[in-house]
């Protein structure tokens, strides 16, 4: 369950108006537990290739967005100055990391990646400070990288490949529709989440579905 205060405020926000920033923040029932199908009981067809690209880690070292091949990646695109949906999404990522830590067999085969699309502000140093507030210290939790880019020119092709449009908004805000991506070990996007469906239990079920598929024991075979 999401923290009650968070949910209540999200509900207030929804009541105020629809957002330019995102289609719908979660309603109070967003955390209501609808039946989640068992892992492997459904298919997650490949939607498109998952782009790689050169980014910077929290120490400012160049690395590939998806890092070494292997494992399931949950990628969230945010910016740290974001005042509405991005913190909610980061809270969901944190809950996902906590949840995955309870199942080490799954947790060690997945990783979380948060990528900022605001490189001018979100320097590696800023991302390091941001990460410190979110990342679990549990050794059983899957790794969570907080990445940025050297500049707009470097981040632009990555955003284009993921279909993530970012426009300047009032007071320095960056208008965008929040999306997170489930990426398999073959670097294919297998699901795209809005905040409505970015429920950690559901995402972890999707991760398990892909792991079952990769082990050949699930019904969920990509075509």
């Amino acid at each position: 369950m999401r923290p009650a205060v968070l949910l209540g405020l999200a509900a207030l926000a929804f009541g105020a108006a629809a957002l330019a920033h995102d289609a719908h923040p979660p309603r109070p029932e967003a955390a209501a537990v609808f039946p989640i199908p068992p892992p492997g009981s459904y298919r997650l067809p490949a939607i498109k290739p998952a782009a790689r690209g050169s980014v910077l880690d929290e120490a400012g070292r160049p690395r590939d967005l998806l890092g070494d091949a292997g494992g399931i990646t949950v990628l969230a695109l945010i910016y740290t100055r974001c005042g509405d949906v991005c913190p909610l999404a980061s809270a969901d990522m944190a809950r996902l990391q906590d949840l995955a830590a309870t199942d080490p067999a799954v947790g060690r085969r997945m990783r979380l990646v948060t990528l900022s699309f605001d490189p001018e502000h979100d320097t590696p140093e800023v991302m390091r400070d941001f990460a410190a507030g979110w990342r679990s210290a549990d050794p059983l939790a899957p790794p969570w990288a907080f990445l940025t880019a050297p500049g707009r020119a470097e981040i632009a092709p990555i955003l284009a490949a993921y279909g993530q449009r970012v426009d300047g908004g009032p007071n320095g805000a960056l208008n965008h529709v929040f999306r997170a991506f489930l990426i398999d070990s073959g670097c294919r996007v297998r699901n795209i989440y809005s905040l409505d469906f970015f429920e950690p239990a559901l995402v972890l079920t999707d991760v398990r579905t892909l792991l079952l598929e990769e082990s050949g024991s699930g019904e969920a075979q990509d075509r």
Partner: protein
Amino acid sequence: MPMAGIRATPLGRSTLAFGAASALLIMTGPVRPDETCQSPYMAKITGIEDFVYVWTLGVDGLGDGSDKLVTIDARETSATFGKPIHVASVGGRHEAHHGGFTDDRRQFWAAGLSDSRIFIFDVATRPATPQLVKVIDDFVERSGGAAGPHGAYALPGRMLIPSLSNRHGTGRAALVEYSNEGDYVTTHWLPTDAEPNGARIEGTADGYGYDARVLPRRNVMLTSSFTGLENYMRPLGDLMKDGEAMKRFGHTMVLWDFHARQPRTVLSVPGVPLEIRWAWGPQNTYAFTSTALTAKLWLVREDERGAWSAKPVADIGDPSTLPVPVDISLSADDRTLFVDTFMDGTTRVFDVSDPDTPRQIYEKKIGSQLNMVSQSWDGKRIYYTSSLLANWDKTGAENEQFLKAYGWNGKELAPRFAIDFTAERLGRPHMMAFGATSLYAK
């Protein structure tokens, strides 16, 4: 300064969320109008609509004779208010019907029912003058035989295309997914008695399709059912004389596990259920539809045990006169439902604040024939168009083709402007969608 994350305790995370949501409340401000019948995944217009895009069937000998996306100027301060200001012709006639925006509202996908082409317009670069940027012309082949793409419904990063038919022209239909880039992803066939795909079937599963709409917070999708290409491309007069053909219409709705894309229950809704409108209220777990051949409003809802059922809750006009309900539009506060009937060209307004007992509060004849209705998020502006299908529209003097705009004050409609699509040499206006320059502000 980056927003400080609080990891240590749940209370800490809540504190962070408080700061985040407070900022959001400040940012949001007053109600921001938008049409009420679009996908909940879509970005919203941040002001009153500037434009109404009209997906329009071409008419032989009228203008260029081609299907086209027409931009109507809806800015009341504009010198061209209430006028068509741009035409994006696609070349040829494809039985233009429905369409929809992508989730980021940067593209409008418009479908053709006859040859299964899907036309993708860029509406973000210059919102007043959409440009055709891509045509999907292998829908039947890529989907594994689905045909007659009916509309386009935004999902995160994807589009859901419900089909009406298949390569054989019958009513067996599918839901087809594409990426926002226009690449095929997958196909889900509607359940049938022979292939229920795990669904519980109340009466029969006809496999027909029409609308598809999602209620994200309950992880459910509803689909409705119409008929196949062999019927909808046939002249209506001939069709109605063919008793066997008239049996080949949909009488079902399907409740799906949306995340798994698996059908859960096939509901019996006789009489061709068409448009689906989910209630918007966070406690309102129900949807309305109307049945074209039996002229009834139906309510589909979830009970306390999580079971879904459908029941008729009101007549629309006098069903014995076959008024043929077509488009419906539910207000953002879930209190008012506009219902158009094609044959008598009339719109009826129901008070649906008690969804079990809708009560008609107003009716007005809009024209000799009537199909689509779109309303703004604040419910103050209502737009109507006239065309149903090229071969089903009325003929002669009754073949009025128009877009008419009204203001709604909660009691009656007041004319704002009207456009004669025949006089303007545009064609048969069908699906409407709103645009706004402010959505793409740099």
